[in-house]
């Protein structure tokens, strides 16, 4: 119930393409869904996050789509660039409902994205 399943494991697109990464969860108590981006040699960094009261959130070329009934969320990268090549992790937590001491993120296994020039 605590798992977040992420797919695909790897993805290769051409510059300008729209890669889509999908995640699914089981625990309906999750109320915070972030995406992290990790470049080689660096730690992950928060890219964009969504709460279940909205179905979509955009920040620049990055969009999260959220389907509460299906318990799925996805990351879309519009007009992808070679600089977007990185590993992307989805995650979930029960931040809003936590009692303190339990603000843990459950991470997906990651998607390695390669954007060819």
């Amino acid at each position, binding site marked *: 119930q605590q798992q977040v399943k*992420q797919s695909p*494991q790897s993805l290769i697109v051409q510059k300008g393409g729209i890669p889509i990464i999908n995640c699914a969860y089981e625990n309906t108590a999750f109320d*915070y869904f*972030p995406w992290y981006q990790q470049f080689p*040699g*660096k*730690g*992950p*960094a*928060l890219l964009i*996050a969504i709460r279940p009261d909205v179905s979509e959130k955009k920040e620049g070329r990055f969009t999260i789509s959220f389907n509460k009934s299906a318990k799925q969320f996805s990351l879309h990268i519009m007009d992808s660039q070679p600089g977007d090549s990185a590993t992307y*992790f989805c995650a979930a*937590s029960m*931040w809003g409902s*936590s009692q*303190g*001491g*339990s*603000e*843990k*993120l459950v*991470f*997906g*296994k*990651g998607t390695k994205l390669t954007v060819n020039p």
Partner: protein
Amino acid sequence: DVKVTQSSRYLVKRTGEKVFLECVQDMDHENMFWYRQDPGLGLRLIYFSYDVKMKEKGDIPEGYSVSREKKERFSLILESASTNQTSMYLCASSFGMHGSNDEQFFGPGTRLTVL
């Protein structure tokens, strides 16, 4: 800017050695985390601390212990290193209950090789 620093970028140790990985954050965060990252397995939580001297086991605590004597510092200890602990270790911190979200800030990682 939030900064999370880890004591070493690369570390090579021998089987059976006691290993200390240090992490320091400069934003007065309540929560600190240790993860290990392995190809195809993503980020797995080893231990979590939500206050000084407080700790919780994560998903894979076996073979590890932690120490948090000061709010800004969280140490991961491998009591007797084994080859299956060769991995990338990532430290992170977050504001905790008093923050506006659950964003975790990560350090650059320590790549540990156990021979």
